[in-house]
């Protein structure tokens, strides 16, 4: 019953959206796919995948396809703050032109500093135009942390040398929905690590508007596109966790769905990189995997068009989608749970990871560490004999 209602609600919303005239009248998405040699079948397959990712029933697939076809009604403004352009790389280059990017990039991107055709003065003009023209209607996506120290002087953009801080605030003011793309924009990111020389902060700290965080360094493309589609489908923000991350993407820990989880449970660990355990694909917890403390869907969605993800390639998760990355997730290649924490939080005093409150229930951290320790005592299979 619930489902039928939801189905009807989405249907009528898409019907409403359809009444708007397309922004690019000379090219429909159907035509575009035809031009690019993407069959209807491929498109429906993709829509089915997206439906599953958003945890919707399979019967919603046609709605997802319809929503994707409507994305050209939704203008997107993408801003760069203090960052490395890695999120754009992940989204707009590495995966393109997978069908997800094709729809996302081609149809709706109104402004993107790095990739847009116009450069310099004209680009700046385009930004204020887009903000004006689509006032209250555009989706704002911000990549990068916002430097706030010294009035934001560590990031100046455009010929008028406006600070990144003021541009982000202004763009946020008239946006219909705001997504902080990547860990920098969500929580400050690597440049906000101690001593945070530029006072970098997440977008939500500099605007009163609600911000949806899509962290990860970088986040997977599907997590970004999924959010946009979710917004089109429901016209509302998705269910969020305590750190404003959409639950459909960040609801589970890396550890929960990890392909090496069986080895963890069996007490089979890589003791150091390059050992027999590493060759056999054992659990990476003891060489510093932060998977048990990290909420993300990398193990399911993977990177580079589903090619691989860190754990598959033999390196532990580094916890890049958690708040206070990197401070909360260092030191590198060492387990977090049972280690004395070199403090970046207090003067000189060492604290254990859980006391610092590393983005997770401390009990889990201790529990995981205890399991790893017990497993070692009970005698993990003697790998060098095999």
């Amino acid at each position, binding site marked *: 019953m619930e489902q039928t209602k939801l189905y009807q609600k989405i249907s009528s919303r898409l019907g409403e959206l359809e009444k708007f005239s397309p922004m690019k009248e000379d090219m429909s998405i159907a035509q575009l796919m035809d031009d690019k040699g993407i069959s209807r079948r491929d498109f429906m397959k993709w829509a089915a995948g997206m439906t599953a990712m958003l945890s919707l029933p399979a019967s919603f697939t046609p709605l997802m396809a319809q929503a994707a076809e409507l994305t050209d009604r939704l203008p997107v403004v993408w801003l760069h703050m203090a960052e490395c352009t890695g999120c754009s790389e992940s989204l707009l280059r590495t995966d393109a032109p997978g069908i997800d990017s094709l729809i996302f990039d081609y149809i709706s991107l109104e402004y993107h500093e790095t990739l847009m055709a116009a450069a310099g003065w004209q680009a700046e003009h385009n930004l204020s135009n887009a903000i004006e023209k689509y006032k209250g209607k555009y989706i704002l996506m911000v990549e990068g942390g916002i430097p706030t120290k010294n009035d934001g002087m560590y990031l100046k953009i455009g010929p008028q040398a406006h600070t990144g801080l003021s541009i982000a605030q202004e763009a946020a003011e008239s946006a219909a929905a705001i997504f902080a793309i990547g860990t920098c924009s969500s929580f400050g990111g690597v440049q906000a690590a101690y001593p945070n020389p530029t006072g970098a902060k997440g977008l939500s700290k500099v605007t009163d508007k609600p911000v949806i965080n899509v962290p990860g360094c970088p986040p997977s493309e599907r997590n970004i596109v999924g959010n946009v589609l979710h917004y089109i489908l429901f016209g509302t923000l998705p269910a969020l966790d305590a750190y404003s991350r959409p639950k459909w993407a960040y609801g589970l820990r890396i550890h929960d769905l990890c392909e090496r989880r069986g080895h963890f449970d069996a007490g089979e660990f890589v003791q150091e990189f*390059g050992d027999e355990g590493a060759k056999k694909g054992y659990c990476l917890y003891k060489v510093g995997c932060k998977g048990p403390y990290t909420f993300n869907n990398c193990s399911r969605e993977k990177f580079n068009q589903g090619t691989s993800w860190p754990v598959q390639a033999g390196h532990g998760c580094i916890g890049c989608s958690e708040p206070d990355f990197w401070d909360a997730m260092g030191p590198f290649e060492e387990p977090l749970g049972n280690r004395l924490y070199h403090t970046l939080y207090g003067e000189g005093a060492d604290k254990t990871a859980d006391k610092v409150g590393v983005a997770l229930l401390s009990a889990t951290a201790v529990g995981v560490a205890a399991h790893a320790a017990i497993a070692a005592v009970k005698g993990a299979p003697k790998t060098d004999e095999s």
Partner: protein
Amino acid sequence: MKKITKELLQRIEGEATLELDWEDDKISYAKIKFLNFRGIEKILENRPFLDALAITPRVCGICNTSHIIAAINAIEDAYMSMGVDIKLSKKAKQIREFALNAEKIQNHIKWLYFSILPEILELNGEDDTNIKAFEGKDWIKAQKICSEILKAMAIFTGQWPHGSFCMIGGVTCDPTRGDIYEAMRYLENVIEFCEKEIFGVSIEEFLSFDSSVQLMGTTGSLQKTVGTMVEHNVSHIGKSYDRFISLGESSSKKRPKKCLVTRVINADISFVSESLKNSFFEEDGYTYSKSAMYKNKYFETGPIARMMIVKNPLIRDFHRKYKDSILTRVVARVSEVAHLLNKSKKILEKIKLSEPSCISPSIPYGSINATGIGRCEAARGSLLHKIEITRGMITSYDIITPTVWNLGNGSKEEPAIAQKALMGIEEICEADLVFKAFDVCAVCTTQ
């Protein structure tokens, strides 16, 4: 007549402003301004030294592999300076080189298609629909090929950007034969694209070229670029000091070298210095960028430097005719793609999977007291990481990126590389082209 104009440059990684002084309708001086700063070097201080492997790649989203390799080289150099033996298996070296090659290939292709070709079409007055971002057929094709080569890389690094795959003594991945075949399949797709679209001939044939005439007989986008530049008389612009430097290690060159016009000599890293002049860190500064120098002189780094130093016959031939002009710079970078593809293919063919991935030295991190220098040849040129470790903690970290060599600011009397290349130019579109040929990466320049 004197005037000053300001040009804002985008469609690069980050943003830069170019302030141009004009005298008698010619650029008499140029200030290159980078107005973003994050303080990564500062953040690295007082952390366990392995953290550099996670933090430094995040300096740059498009050359993160170069940073992780420079960082691991610096750490391993520090170990070795303490007398610890680092045994890298051939396999580990090959995987590191393959990842680095893949990153360079995609950087070069992107730069050609997204920075250079649009300008070339504009010179020709041609319709640019095919190259238009998100829409053009060629743009999408190039985009797809960049993903292909990165997929080949991700098999070893887990993800791109920001794959963590290097550890002291090797790499963390343990690829299977199936992984190698998969990587090979992606690589073949890239080779096919480059042969068909860029070079117009097979990679083998292109690599045998030793004169510009042979290149002009082909039909790819490289030939078109060269032809257009010659036809519109922009082939001679953008000359700088004709001094090149390449500090990194590759399979074709182990030691740091420099090249004065055509004479190649050894270089010594201890002569590399960084100047804070003109930066916000000193009085009257106007940029966050520092400038790198060798024996207090500016040197150009990048594919052109690498090609001149290994005495590549084709580039030497272009250099004979066009010196270190924009044309030689462009041809050097694009033809490096052929070399990289060839080497990467050989790596995949020869790699022995039975060798160990990582041989960890058994010495506690806390007992490391040493300094190390990591050298790496990134897409845009030489990258240096200098690390100082005291009892396992970083006490200082210095990153010198390629763009600090090429795009720093000197003075009117002694301009830096790109400044000198810009001086004397009469048209703003030409200045834009010269500047883009250096491939600006603002996020690396200022970190």
